């Protein structure tokens, strides 16, 4: 039981309901089951929908090219100097201005953090992970995983740096906050 990931447990629960529903279909012809948790009749949905979105990054391609080169990039409004992270390619306060790409500093301090134990379904295959927000030396803030899951070894205000890392098991490049003090 404890060796199963949260995702495997969720899948096993639904599989159990589906098996009940299939048994009821064989017996009564309809996928109506009595929920073992609530003792109430429920229809087991016969339409399963998988969601995977197609998201445009055309205007921010440089950000991902930067990651491939080990860099963390942001945009800066040429008119106002405002730095955008996450990067955006339009400056609402200077609508006719353009943005330029700039590399973010890597050093900063930890503003806040949390350790996620109960996970969303699509993160259910990971061990517990820490999410934090770092304030970089130029004032820009970055939210990312923090490479430390012991709350006793983390504190607000501690020095951190940003590293570009490969996320496993998916095997893609992203960025991470790393404690820079012992």
């Amino acid at each position, binding site marked *: 039981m404890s060796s199963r990931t949260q995702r495997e447990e969720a899948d096993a629960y639904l599989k159990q309901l589906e098996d009940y529903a299939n048994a009821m279909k064989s017996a009564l012809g309809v996928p109506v089951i009595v929920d073992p948790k609530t003792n109430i009749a*429920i229809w087991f949905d016969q339409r399963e929908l998988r969601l995977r979105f197609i998201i445009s990054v055309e205007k921010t391609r440089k950000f991902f090219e930067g990651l491939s080169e080990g860099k963390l990039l942001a945009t800066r409004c040429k008119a106002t100097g405002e730095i955008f992270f*996450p990067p955006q390619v339009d400056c609402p306060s200077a609508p006719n201005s353009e943005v330029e790409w700039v590399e973010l500093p890597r050093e900063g301090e930890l503003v806040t953090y*949390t350790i996620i134990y109960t996970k969303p379904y699509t993160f259910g295959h990971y061990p517990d992970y820490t999410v934090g927000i770092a304030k970089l030396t130029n004032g820009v803030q970055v939210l990312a995983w923090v490479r430390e899951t012991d709350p006793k070894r983390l504190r607000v205000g501690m020095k951190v740096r940003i590293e570009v890392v490969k996320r496993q098991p998916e095997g893609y490049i992203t960025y991470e906050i790393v404690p820079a003090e012992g």
Partner: protein
Amino acid sequence: MAVVGYGHSRFGVRSDVNMAELAWEAIKEALETSGLEPKDIEHVVVANAGGWSSEPLPAVVVAEYAGLTGKPLHRVEAACASGSAAVASAYEAVASGMADIAIAVGIEKMNESPTPTVVEFIGRAGNYFWEFENFGLTFPGYYALYATAYMARYGATEEDLCQVAVKNHYYASMNPKAQFQRKIDLETCMKSRYIAWPVKLYDSSPITDGAAAVVLASEEVAKKLTDSPVWIHSIGAASGTANLSKRDDYSGLKAAQLAALAAYKRAGLEPENTARYFDAAEVHDCFTIAEVMAYEDLGFVRRGEGYKLVREGQTYKGGLIPVNLSGGLKAKGHPIGATGVSMIAELTKQLLHKVEPGRQADIRKGLVIAHNVGGTGHYAYVTILGLEKPKAR
């Protein structure tokens, strides 16, 4: 404008009813308390966050079932503040003269999906691409970011936060509509497991099915319908950044502060030391830290002093201001789209002395306040209700 009717389903795991049946429980009571029939309603707004439930057009499904087909109808979304957004939208319909009688219905059926799916949907509520896709934040996780920062800055403890849960479970034990009608002690909360450090299971509101409805009417119509209308003094609304990383401060919710300022201004109240104005408050305690921040964001006390109210028991009846006599989101339950409407229904009943003994506020000032936050300070609504008709501005 006045609230002339209110309805509220039992909150909890409501697999015994489908979405329309659940909404009808609230609509039926709202019609009964206002002395109206479906044909009398001129405008319908339905709040539902959805995603986890099967109906993508909940407004039409609910309206058809409730005999409200044909009326102007739309659904609103402001995450966990969708209910307040529905009340605000119904308010606007009446205020503009589009309708004399409007109903705001909040409905959520969260248990149509397994828990990890619900956790996923709420975790996506912020900026999906930049803060969820790679980092898998959860709703408790978002608020945990605030809890960590708040405790580090002001010295509040996990015990302080758990005292909020103890209070809200205490009042929910007297609310027959609540999901958790049992008291808990501090130890139960402190020993519960972490779900997003430093937020524990008992710091957290549950996954809830539920519905609530309120009927709003113009002054002229309200006076004909009832001799005890509850007047809407003001609605203040504001918003916050989608990305949590773009916030300046993690010890309070800017959107709630702005919404409160707007509500106080419209109602002609000073924005400081505001507990003096109200007999009771319903605040958005999706997590215990959220209730502590609400005390400050609403101006009951100065920044950094909210946890002291909890420590001193000042938000029980008899204290500075009783907060969440319904049990709050924490123990009454938090059916996302229904919560804001539930607050207005609850406070209307409080003003009219219609809640259960033991959790009825002493109504002396005749003014109450609702604080409803969507997402993690992504949306905020503050609504002030009163027994006296507001002075014309």
